């Protein structure tokens, strides 16, 4: 039995976000390469171990500094408007309830970790998402907000000086902009890894919206790369 899992607005904004974020990260890294360190001229910076090491050009986008800036300052509007549409929708439509941590969140998350580490045998009971997913999808927009605010701060550090001051001035705002980008990339890679390793069936649900609950990781008792196939034994039990 197939059920609709994601509303079309969620699916559309998910893929727009994928494209916009990829371009923002690529062009941002190209801009970073024009001065791949954080220290103010004539000073040192405490908290970045790779001061002066450029990002491999293959991972950047935009071709040259000016080009990357044009992409960055155009795509930022797509990213922000798309993000607002998504957040506005899940707020009005109630999907936010699937993402906000519930009471006992830490215990649920701990149980998921125990399950993935083979300490616990059965997949914990979950709703739409397991506790670790909830945490990830809940944190993602907040880190995104930090990336946007620090981005505005280093775009207009004089005209919007109070915003830059909020993050400790231009140099620190630029640092937090970089850190929030790294966090978004990290969360995205974990997310993509888990989709392929645990629940490839969710790819379909993010394209057409359809999802068969019999294939859910909970039903398959699925760990990364384990039990990736549908739970056939259960089906045959039902048939007999």
């Amino acid at each position, binding site marked *: 039995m197939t059920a609709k899992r994601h509303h079309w607005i969620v699916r559309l904004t998910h893929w727009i976000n994928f494209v916009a974020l990829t371009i923002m990260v690529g062009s941002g890294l190209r801009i970073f390469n024009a001065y791949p360190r954080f220290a103010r001229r004539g000073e040192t910076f405490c908290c970045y171990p790779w001061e002066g090491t450029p990002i491999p050009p293959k991972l950047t986008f935009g071709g040259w*500094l000016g*080009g990357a*800036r044009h992409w960055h300052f155009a795509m930022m509007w797509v990213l922000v408007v798309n993000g607002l549409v998504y957040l506005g929708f899940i707020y009005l439509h109630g999907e936010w309830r699937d993402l906000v941590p519930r009471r006992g969140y830490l215990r649920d998350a701990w149980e998921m970790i125990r399950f993935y580490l083979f300490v616990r045998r059965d997949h914990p009971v979950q709703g739409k998402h397991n506790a670790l997913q909830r945490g990830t999808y809940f944190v993602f927009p907040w880190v995104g907000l930090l990336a946007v605010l620090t981005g505005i701060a280093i775009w207009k550090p004089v005209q919007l*000086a109070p915003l830059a001051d909020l993050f400790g001035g231009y140099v620190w705002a630029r640092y937090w902009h970089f850190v929030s980008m790294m966090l978004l990339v990290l969360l995205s890679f974990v997310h993509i890894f888990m989709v392929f390793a645990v629940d490839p069936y969710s*790819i379909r649900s993010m394209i057409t919206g359809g999802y068969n609950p019999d294939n859910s990781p909970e039903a398959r008792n699925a760990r990364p790369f384990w039990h990736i196939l549908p739970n056939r034994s259960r089906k045959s039990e039902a048939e007999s």
Partner: protein
Amino acid sequence: MTIDRRRFITITGSAVSAAILASCNSRGPKAAEKLLKYAERKNESLERSLFRHTAMDETISGSRLAGNALPSYFVSRTVPVWSEETMGPWSLEIGGMVDRPLKLSLQNLIDLPRVHHRVNHYCVEGWTAVEQWTGVSMRELARLVGAHREARYVDFESFDDGYHESWDIESAMHPQTVIAYGLDGHMLGPAHGAPARLYSPVKLGYKNTKYLTRIMFLPQKNGGYWSDRGYEWYGGV
């Protein structure tokens, strides 16, 4: 030939990945250029509407003057130096849409009301540097020559191989915009734009013309060295 879902996903997936890989470290699709130009225009009008003369640049307490760590750049092959023997005495010409066009010698500039600004330098590359500039406020100069209300733009020209940058009048009249002849307590050296240069923290470094020769009040934009080479014309911070 029918394509089943699995095959469809494989094909689309590979096509999308190939497209993404192909665009890496490139300038992106040509077709996007019009959209990027459009976004740049929209951003410029937004930035200009955000612009306030009351928004001041302040340096973080405890920040050090960059001093010799301040990079020097010019577009000529060698450091542009004004040679009195071959070029005659240096002067700064102020003209265009003004009541009283002026020619100022360096001494004339020094004799005008003096301002000191300890401010940040924001480079398009992402770095900043703290410097202290000494000079004459652009507002003062505009008053002196009687700039017309219809002059909405100002072009700053130099003797550095045709380098110039035109500005919107609001940014040129910001209280922290100066024609500087002193840097960190010394007279400006040839590495940083001697005899005099434009300096303001409200614009990215490349908008601040060094080696000044002429300031023209204009009714419209007149591009600029880096803006003509694809960087944003506005370049405001």
